[in-house]
């Protein structure tokens, strides 16, 4: 099984520039490909890559905040993108704030676009909204408005859903919020990074023990490393889809 996956990786490596260099380490983060398929293209990111300068902004909540006790995924994303796109100047800036809802993130979008002029925004959201029980319809409208604002300003979006947390799974009703995000992603044809399914897969496969109670940051560090890596792969795939129309990953 592993071997055939490896073989497949070699076969498609022509599409994924320099994927082989990190293939060894990638095993660690392994997830079935359909979990991280881009589905939709990222034309602005493709144009930025062609222009050799790609700026990404991360919006979100606590799990996207950089400069914590470990390297969180925005930092890892920058490393990953730089490795995948030699010769392109990649910068990833996290503007995430703890406790931010989709509504508050949506309100700061215009400012973010004006200040940062990113080619792509990774919009991680959902957890805080689910905990607070924000009205589902409001959540959907805020997401839609945000994506429209970004698209009007010619900025690509990748939505990122919640973390999978086995301990609090029965206490936070994530389901309907995750579903709303999936629906909005399909509606606006933007890629969705399904962090929830990815982490759940790791937990089920024993890649990471997400249940452990610990103060140590080693697992958190590796989880974020993998998320940064997979997210980077998805963004590059979405950009490739835009650059080579017809070769969409379906």
């Amino acid at each position: 099984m592993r071997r055939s996956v490896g073989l497949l990786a070699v076969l498609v490596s022509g599409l994924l520039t320099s994927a082989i260099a990190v293939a060894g380490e990638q095993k660690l983060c392994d997830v079935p490909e359909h979990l991280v398929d881009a589905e939709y293209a990222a034309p602005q990111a493709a144009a930025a890559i062609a222009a050799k300068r790609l700026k990404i902004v991360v919006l979100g909540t606590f799990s996207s905040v950089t400069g914590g006790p470990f390297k969180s995924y925005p930092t890892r994303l920058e490393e990953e993108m730089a490795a995948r796109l030699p010769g392109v100047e990649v910068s990833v800036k996290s503007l995430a704030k703890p406790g931010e809802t989709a509504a508050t993130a949506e309100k700061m979008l215009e400012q973010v676009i004006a200040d940062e002029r990113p080619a792509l925004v990774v919009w991680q959201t959902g957890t805080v909204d689910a905990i607070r029980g924000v009205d589902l319809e409001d959540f959907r409208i805020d997401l839609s408005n945000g994506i429209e604002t970004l698209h009007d300003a010619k900025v690509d979006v990748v939505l990122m859903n919640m973390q999978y947390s086995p301990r609090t799974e029965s206490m936070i009703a994530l389901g309907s919020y995750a579903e709303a995000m999936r629906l909005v992603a399909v509606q606006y044809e933007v890629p969705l990074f399904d962090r929830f399914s990815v982490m759940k897969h790791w937990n089920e496969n024993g890649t990471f023990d997400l249940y452990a109670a610990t103060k140590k940051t080693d697992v958190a560090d590796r989880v974020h490393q993998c998320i940064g890596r997979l997210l980077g792969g998805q963004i590059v795939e979405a950009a490739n889809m835009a650059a080579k129309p017809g070769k969409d990953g379906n």
Partner: protein
Amino acid sequence: MLPAVSAERDLRLDLFRGLALWLIFLDHIPSNMVSWVTIRNYGFSDATEIFVFISGYTVAFVYGRAMRERGVIVGGARLLKRAWQVYVAHIFLFTIYMAEIAYVAASFDNPLYREEMGVFEFLKQPDVTLVQALLLKFKPANMDVLPLYIVLLAGFPPILWLMLRQPTTALALSVVLYSLAWHYGLNLPAYPSGTWVFNPLAWQLLFVFGGWCAISGGDRLRGLINSWLVMVVAIAYLAFAFAITMTWYFPPIAHHVPRWLSEWMYPIDKVNLDVLRFAHFLALAVLTVRFIPDDWPGLKSRLLRPAILCGQHSLEIFCLGVFLAFAGHFALIELSDGVGMQVLVSALGIAIMVAAAAVIAWYKKVEGRSSGPRPRPPDATLAGGGA
């Protein structure tokens, strides 16, 4: 002259409510493979619709009779007493939930999940949280059905009064309220923010419709249910809903759904009982009633007895199911979450529900026989199971 309510209790109601209780239990265990068998994965509606409809039906059946025989005041008072019982049950469940969450909050620490710890915030201000819970504004995950039911029961006496005289007017008013709730976005407020997960102003439609079927509509609809055309439409709609549902689980085929269709169809609103969900439930109900007659011998078979038993004591079994779902999830994450364990926890949970229903049935029977010189009101056992 008030319309007569048929005297026989329809075992199909108990059967399907019992099954709905099992499905709700399975759906409430997070990450449970076994929940793939539940109907929500194959169409728009889920077990909640079945539960609310059948509850409306039985409530109108039982309390409608009380109202006709003992008067509006007594019938209405019994309804309110039932609402009170459900309220007490809900608060009891809430206490169990608090105990679980407080335990997890005290033992849980992981830098990866600092965000998720936010769900424990409310433990820091019990003064607010407990009052909001008593007001039914603060409702933890998976504890939204009983508050809906409480509101529906408490608001039902005047509707039932009207329904016994003008059944179709009552149903029409219900449709009007449903439309108003949709048009003006009316819903009850929740704490800390947002609105109710099951909007009572919208879901009442299904409840009142159930009541209408019990009081008068059942006979009126017979011709429609037996019509060949209705059956074809119902089957076609179920097939359509099945196809759409599959696109949710296999995103690549979602591209085949025409854009105009998804723009018209989505979002399929569970909060406000989307018309698509209501229609899906109707289609299921029509086929069920058509193919399973009320004198179907299978209803007396030993095989279906467990589900019928659960359906006859639905309040107790519902509460037990919510608790077992907590406990089951706890067992899965503490011990092992392998597929085998998921099957075991699911089967064990249903077995416990059935055993509890059997004990309750036995106890009610014993009590009924030995209760002193004063005979119990004739609908007592039905009322016990009637909600």
